[in-house]
C-alpha cells in the first residue's frame, strides 16, 4: 500500500486521466469465481501503471503523426479526468467528432475547414450555409451532430457557448478508374474520399486565435520559443 502511495504521488505531477476500456457484450452469468479463470490480481500491475501505458501510447502516436486515424480520434471522448479540489477542471471541456469516408476530395474540403477555425459554432453554421462548395454543407451536418452529442453526453450547458478549436480534412482512400482519350490512349481517374475531424470546446472563442505577432521582434521570440519547446524522442 505504501508503494502505491509513492507511485501516486509521483504520478500526480504528470497528467492523470483514466481511459475507459470497452465493455464486453457478453456478461458471464455465473456467480462463482471457481469457474472463471481469473489471473491473480497481485501479479497484475496497478491502476497507475495501466493508465501510464495508455497515456504513453497516445502521446507517442501524436508525436509520430499517426494519431489522426478514424479509430483513435473518438477515443479521446472516453477519457475521464479526476475531480479537483478547486472545482475548476484540469482541461477545458471538449468533444471530438468526425465523419469518415466522405465522397469529396480533401483538397476542396480543407478550405471551409480552414475558414471555421476559431469561430463560435453559431457563426460557423451561418457562414457554412451560404458557402458555394458541397463540402461546406457536409461540415455543417457534422457540426450539428457534434453539438447534440456535447449537450446530451458530455454535460455541456448551453447550445451556443461553444467554439471550434480544431478542424481539418484529410485524405482517406481513393478508388482508381480508367478513362479513354483520343486513340488508344488511356488516363487514370481517381475517386477520392476524405475524413473530417472536429474538436468543439466550451466557452467563448478566444480573441487571439488567428493573430500572430505584429512586430519582427515578437515574431522572432515566438520562433525561438517554438524551437526550445522541442523534445528529442527516445532520448535520455
Amino acid at each position, binding site marked *: 500500500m505504501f508503494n502505491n502511495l509513492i507511485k501516486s504521488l509521483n504520478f500526480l505531477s504528470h497528467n492523470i486521466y483514466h481511459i475507459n476500456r470497452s465493455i464486453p457484450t457478453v456478461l*458471464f*452469468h*455465473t*456467480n462463482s469465481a471457481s469457474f472463471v479463470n481469473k489471473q491473480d490480481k497481485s501479479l497484475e500491475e496497478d491502476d497507475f501503471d495501466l493508465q501510464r501505458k495508455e497515456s504513453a501510447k497516445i502521446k507517442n502516436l501524436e508525436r509520430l503523426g499517426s494519431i489522426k486515424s478514424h479509430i483513435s480520434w473518438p477515443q479521446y471522448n472516453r477519457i475521464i479526468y479526476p475531480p479537483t479540489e478547486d*472545482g475548476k477542471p484540469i482541461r477545458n471541456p471538449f468533444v471530438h467528432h468526425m465523419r469518415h469516408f466522405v465522397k469529396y476530395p480533401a483538397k476542396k474540403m480543407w478550405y471551409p475547414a480552414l475558414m471555421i477555425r476559431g469561430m463560435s459554432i453559431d457563426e460557423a453554421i451561418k457562414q457554412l450555409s451560404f458557402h458555394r462548395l458541397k463540402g461546406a454543407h457536409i461540415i455543417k451536418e457534422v457540426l450539428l451532430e457534434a453539438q447534440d452529442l456535447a449537450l446530451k453526453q458530455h454535460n455541456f450547458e448551453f447550445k451556443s457557448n461553444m467554439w471550434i478549436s480544431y478542424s481539418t480534412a484529410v485524405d482517406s482512400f481513393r478508388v482508381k478508374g480508367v*478513362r479513354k482519350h483520343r486513340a488508344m490512349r488511356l488516363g487514370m481517374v481517381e475517386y477520392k474520399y476524405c475524413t473530417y475531424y472536429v474538436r468543439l470546446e466550451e466557452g467563448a472563442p478566444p480573441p487571439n486565435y488567428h493573430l500572430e505577432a505584429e512586430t519582427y521582434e515578437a515574431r522572432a521570440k515566438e520562433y525561438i520559443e517554438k524551437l526550445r519547446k522541442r523534445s528529442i524522442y527516445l532520448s535520455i
Partner: protein
Amino acid sequence: MLSIINKRNIFLHQKLVKSLYEQTLTRPLATHWDPKFRRLRKNKFTEPTLLDFDSNTKEKVKRGIEPPTSFIYKPINITSSKEIFDPYIPPEGDGKASLFSKEFAKGAVEKITKSTSKKFKHLRLIKKSDSNFDENLFAETAQQIYIDAHSILSKRDPEEMLNFVTENALMKMYHNMKFKTIRWKWIESLEEPVVKHLVTREMMVKTDLYAQVTVRIHSKQILAVYDRFGRLAFGSDTLPKDVLEYVVFEKHLSDPYGSWRLHDKIIPSWSPAKTPVIRSFALPEPYKTDDELEKRIVSKFKGDDSHLEKIQEEKS
C-alpha cells in the same frame, strides 16, 4: 452604396444581383460546346463500384438492398429475473410521521399485498435451501450487501459487482455511471433494517425457484457525482442526507452457487423530490412507446402462488 434617385432603379438592381449560392443552383451543369455526343462521351469512363457510406439503411431498404445481418447472439441470463414479483406497496408517511400522529392514521395503513397470507409457506421454501435463514439476521446481512455494492460502484468493474448485484440492477447502476466519477459514503443507519415482504416464484418448470425479499433501510449517506472533466454534477461531498428505501434482494434458490444479491429498489410516489442537477439543461423530446412491443413481452414467471399448494399435499 445604392443610388436612391429612382425607386425603380433599386428594384432592378436587387433582382440582378444573385448570391453565389443561388447562382450555383440555377446555372446549367452541362457546358460543353457540342452537346450532341454527350452519351458517347460518357462511355469513355469506366463505372467503378463506389461504396455508399453516406446513405442510411432505411433509404437502402427502399431501393431493395438488404440490411446487414449481425451475428451477435444475445446471452440469456437464467440467474436473475427482470421484474419484481409481487411489489410491496409501502404505506404513506412512513419516514416522516410517527406512529401516533394524524398523518399516520389517515393513510398509513399497510395495504395488503396478494401473498402476505402465504408468507410462512414462502419461508418454508426458502429454508429448504438455506436452513439457517432468519429474518432479523438476514436484514443485517442485506444491509451489508447494500453497502458493499454501492462502495464498489466507483471502481468501474462489472465483474466484481456481480457478486453483490444482479444483472438487472447492474444494467441500471452501471449504464449512466460509465463516464463519471462517483463518491459514495455510508455514514450510519438511522433505524434498524426490517424485512417487509417475502415472495417465491417458479420459472416455467417446477424445480426453478427464485426468491425475493424486500428490506426497509433508513440511513444517512453522502453522494457526489462528478463529470467527465471533474466538475460537480450532482450532490455534495460534505452534506449527508437521510435516505428511506425499500430494497429488493433476490436469490436463485435452485442454483447451488446462488447468493443473495441486490435486485431493485421500490420508489414510492409520495417520496420527496430529488435535488436538482447543478447545471441547466433543455428537456429532451419524449420517447415514442411501442405498443406492439409491450404486448409481445411476456414474463416467463407464473403470476400465481400455485406451487405452494403442493407443500400441503406432501404434508398430508
